């Protein structure tokens, strides 16, 4: 099984000006492990007016929300706005949070909506949450089949690899990009991803398949064995 090993801790400094592909640092076996057991108590305390409890929630998730904003919008200023708006809105609307999902899932939902709004504002005619009518990637998958070798990413310097990953994920349609980021990079479960996006589990699986196939296809030209560096 392929699982993305995500964690709040273990983030490392990226050189200034480096491209913004953002990913996980510390191993995490299951999506649910993102949330510590005391999250519900912190949320209750914050609802009762304890600002320190809310700050603890912010400290816990700020890196992850910033990273998600960066990965969706691919822009630092937009990611900062997304993060601020997500936390301020979640604080303002905390009384509406009923606890029928995890606080983190609720927060991610707010952040994803903010990030998609940023994208729509930037490219109003290009960003749609409707399913694109383009090919699903299944029929074209066998057109480019090449062996990548054991560790194709090691053929690139870190900065160059970041540029490649940033570029290929930026080319994905936003609805596929978000599904891939939530499920494969952030390590949320398929069910949580469906809940956040307001779509069915089957739709998440379909978007995920298309995202993975598209990314594989786009990476092929960099990672195939015949591509000598």
């Amino acid at each position: 099984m392929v699982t993305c090993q995500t964690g709040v801790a273990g983030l490392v400094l990226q050189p200034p000006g480096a491209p913004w592909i953002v990913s996980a640092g510390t191993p995490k076996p299951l999506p649910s492990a993102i949330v510590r057991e005391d999250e519900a108590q912190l949320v209750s305390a914050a609802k009762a007016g304890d600002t320190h409890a809310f700050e603890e929630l912010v400290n816990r998730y700020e890196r992850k929300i910033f990273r998600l904003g960066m990965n969706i919008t691919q822009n630092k200023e937009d990611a900062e706005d997304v993060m601020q708006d997500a936390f301020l809105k979640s604080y303002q609307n905390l009384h509406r949070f009923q606890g029928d999902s995890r606080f983190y899932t609720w927060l991610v939902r707010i952040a994803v909506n903010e990030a998609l709004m940023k994208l729509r504002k930037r490219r109003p005619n290009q960003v749609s949450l409707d399913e694109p009518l383009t090919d699903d990637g299944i029929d074209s998958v066998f057109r480019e089949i090449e062996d990548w070798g054991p560790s194709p990413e090691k053929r690139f310097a870190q900065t160059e690899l970041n540029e490649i990953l940033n570029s290929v994920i930026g080319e994905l349609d936003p609805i596929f990009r978000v599904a891939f980021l939530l499920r494969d990079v952030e390590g949320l479960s398929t069910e949580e991803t469906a809940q956040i996006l307001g779509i069915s589990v089957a739709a998440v699986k379909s978007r995920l398949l298309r995202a993975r196939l598209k990314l594989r296809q786009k990476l092929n030209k960099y990672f195939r064995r015949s591509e000598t560096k």
Partner: protein
Amino acid sequence: MNCKKVIVELTSYLDGVLDSEMKIDLEEHLSGCTDCRLVVDTCRKTIQIFCNSEPVPLPEDVRQRLHSALLERFRRNAKTI
């Protein structure tokens, strides 16, 4: 199982949620189909490469601005209570 069915089931297979009978069929197909084996392998590597890519930090100035904005909101809320 044919090649197209392998691709349809690829996500469930990579996520380890394919039912055992289907998994046996799929792996039997993979053992005799180089193309499908390469697709599965490169798709798995695609996910791993993104997972293992270098994380980006939250810049300190960005973090400071977030916490200043929150403190301001806390103060404003306290005044209205």
